[in-house]
């Protein structure tokens, strides 16, 4: 039998360790005692006067540690969001290459951000966050709408195809804006590489409920995904309401991909790698795939972020780059270990 209980404990332990590494370790060496004292003072300070009160009257080291807190939380939320969105997409499209990017959600978010920077002159982080969410939402509506045009409930192939079309459209629009407005290119470059360092605590509190809701929706639909993995006909014969289950999971995926992209930019690969790795190690039960993705997605992003901080101090490498550097070998090893890649 598969030992899922102990594996879940190990994964949670790994999450704790990665979060600790993200708090204790960085481009600037900080005495662990300072980290502990800042963390210990956190609840009292938050109760006292909120986040802004916290930074008052602290040394540089303490301020550095304090800046690592939202960064760690961003990595946790974005990692969970991307990995669970990937698991949901793989399940609902019955495509092991499923990824939020496949639905054009990331492209939609990028496009909205570019238009915001270029034409609306958006500066604030929260505005970019809101734009990214709106862009994902528009992309999702387009994908749903066009796959519903044929009548009946959307099929996996229909959704992936319309996702590809929407993706291409938004990418073309983004490219043309970026090419025609060099000033936009400069800012968009930084946004598009993906980073967990830019989200502010206000963004986090706004986006966290969306991520939670998205994870719950996909988790709720994961039992149906198990039946849908056997093909539509058999799933129908098992009494699964295919349309309802698909909508449930898709809404969850849109919320997750939109929120994660809004917080950290278009980080690729987490949504592909994490569910795949879980499936290889623990089998094809989507209830467990989703659950483990929610824990291991943050682990990957946290470790990638820590790696980016300590590799070339005092410079930092963006997490979008280190995720791929870290993730590609892991995926290749897993694929080698497996008997065959069935597509």
């Amino acid at each position: 039998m598969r030992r899922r209980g102990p594996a879940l404990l190990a994964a949670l332990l790994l999450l704790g360790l990665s979060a600790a590494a993200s708090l204790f370790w960085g481009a600037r060496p900080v005495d662990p005692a300072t980290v502990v004292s800042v963390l210990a003072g956190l609840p009292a300070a938050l109760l006292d006067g909120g986040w802004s009160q916290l930074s008052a009257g602290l040394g540089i080291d303490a301020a550095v540690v304090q800046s690592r807190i939202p960064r760690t939380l961003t990595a946790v939320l974005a990692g969970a969001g991307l990995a669970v969105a990937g698991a949901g997409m793989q399940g609902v499209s019955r495509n092991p290459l499923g990824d939020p990017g496949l639905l054009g959600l990331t492209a939609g978010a990028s496009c909205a951000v570019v238009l915001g920077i270029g034409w609306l002159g958006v500066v604030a982080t929260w505005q970019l966050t809101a734009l990214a969410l709106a862009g994902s939402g528009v992309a999702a509506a387009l994908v749903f709408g066009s796959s519903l045009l044929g009548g009946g409930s959307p099929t996996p192939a229909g959704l992936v195809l319309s996702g590809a079309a929407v993706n291409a459209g938004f990418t073309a629009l983004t490219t043309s804006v970026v090419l025609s407005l060099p000033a936009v290119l400069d800012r968009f470059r930084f946004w598009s590489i993906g980073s967990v360092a830019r989200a502010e605590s206000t963004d986090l509190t706004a986006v966290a409920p969306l991520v939670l809701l998205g994870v719950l929706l996909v988790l709720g639909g994961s039992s149906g995904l198990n039946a849908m993995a056997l093909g539509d006909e058999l799933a129908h014969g098992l009494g699964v309401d295919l349309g309802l289950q698909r909508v449930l999971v898709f809404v969850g995926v849109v919320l997750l991909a939109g929120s994660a992209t809004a917080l950290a930019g278009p980080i690729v690969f987490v949504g592909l790698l994490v569910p795949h790795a879980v499936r290889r190690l623990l089998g094809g039960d989507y209830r467990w795939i989703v659950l483990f993705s929610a824990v291991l997605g943050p682990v990957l992003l946290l470790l990638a972020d820590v790696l980016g901080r300590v590799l070339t101090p005092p410079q930092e490498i963006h997490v979008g780059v280190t995720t791929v550097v870290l993730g590609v070998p892991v995926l290749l090893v897993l694929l080698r270990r497996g008997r065959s890649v069935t597509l």
Partner: protein
Amino acid sequence: MSPELHAVADPAADAPAFRMRGLSLGYGDRAVVREVDLDIPHGGTTVLIGANGCGKTTLLKGLSRQLKPLAGTLEADGRGVREWHARQYARSVSLLPQSPVVPEGLTVAELVERGRHPHRRWWGAPSPDDDAAVARAMELTELTALAGRPVEELSGGQRQRVWIALSLAQRARTMLLDEPTSYLDLAHQVDLLDMLRGLEHPDGPGRATVVAVLHELNLAARVADRLVAMAAGRIVAVGSPAEVLTPELLAEVFGLRADVARDPVGGRPVVLPRGRAREGPHPAPPADPVALDPAPGARPAETVRNLP
């Protein structure tokens, strides 16, 4: 309430598994199955036969509620199929489609267990009968020894048995099977069909109800209590194998010129195909069995040519 009263109060007690009246089924506006009137009784094996594309699979899709009737009515156990709740229907009627998808990363036992889906409560929480149903299904399909093997590693025939086990684990009173013998060798085909014949009603006395599409007519004759012959979306004949499998009907339904013999054991009909019944160019019929009956001088030229 006493049992007698209960029995009287239940009008569906002896309703047939399916009752079709003027039923038309199809895709979009195109009807594939047209104006079918048919009762399929409980407790027996009904086999649908007919040429490719005559609507057998479409009829099964209708019975499993995947297609809405274009016209006419369809009742299951005396209730219109649209009135059933999806899960409740899945506990009563199971479907094994022609080509289900093999998901990644599952063992045989895990895949068979997915047949328990309609019996489970929210979020697939295990139901108390799961283990027994899964074990029984794997035993009937001789998969117990393969329980821990990844499904991806199995042969086509073994996979087919896994799908049948999944359908058995669903423990529905009525099983719809679309070409369940595909990929199976002859011994396993016979095994499977005999097993289905002997299958019991999961929660009551009597036999389970099986509705299957089969292409191998002799196996169909061997296993079926009733044959339903279809051609061009309509039902051409219904009855016992001996009533349905006649040379005239085979010519009409399959365009097949055939003789029908009696099996010396059991007396069921055996179809002996001779060739196409249609007009026009077709390959010459197989050579006469001269070798078995070497009448002297029958074919002197060939005999001479074959001599050293």
